[in-house]
């Protein structure tokens, strides 16, 4: 399990949890929705704005997973 109190004290854990959490909160408000609001509800309602949002969510996730996480950790 990555998420425990010991890991919070290591730099890796800190970055993961606090920076990650901050980005989730900030990004959700900035994009006016998260995966529930945009990806599921918005796409079900056939909104274009939600398609753009979902693509960006995914792009951000891909960039982080493929490039930044391997680089930093």
């Amino acid at each position, binding site marked *: *399990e*990555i*998420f*425990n*109190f010991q*890991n*919070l004290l290591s730099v890796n854990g800190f*970055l*993961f*949890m*606090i*920076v*990650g*959490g*901050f*980005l*989730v*909160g*900030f*990004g*959700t*408000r*900035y*994009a*006016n*929705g*998260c*995966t*529930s*609001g*945009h*990806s*599921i*509800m*918005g*796409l*079900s*309602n*056939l*909104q*274009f*704005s*939600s398609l*753009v*949002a*979902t*693509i*960006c*969510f*995914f*792009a*951000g*996730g*891909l*960039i*982080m*997973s*493929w490039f*930044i*996480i391997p680089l930093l950790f």
Partner: protein
Amino acid sequence: MKNLKYFFVGLIFGFILIKAEVISWFRIQEMFRFQSFHMYGIIGSAIAIGALSIFIIKKFNIKDTSGNPITIAPKELNKGTVIGGLCFGFGWALTGACPGPLYALVGSGHLIILIVLLSAIAGTFTYGLLKDKLPH
């Protein structure tokens, strides 16, 4: 007391999130590395059912429990959608959780996630502070 229905909907949602392993960091990483169909199946089937439900609601003009027609407020598209979406995506890959799963994780006993949650709330608060200075 009339808000009890929201409590039950939330209860079911949290339960489903946990049962479907949506809250697992590893599942989210799997999704981004294309190593598993799991998350795509969940999100895909959710959208399919949602789209069908909305289609039926609109076609038959179904009213809500108070008799009002159901309207879904559209979300606007602006630069914030793109930039915020990217930010959220970064955070999503890092934490492996969306806002909803964060609460479900705390509920399922991972108290450390309270830190992530507080950080997320700090993020939304910061957005509120910086809102007027950010490109939209």
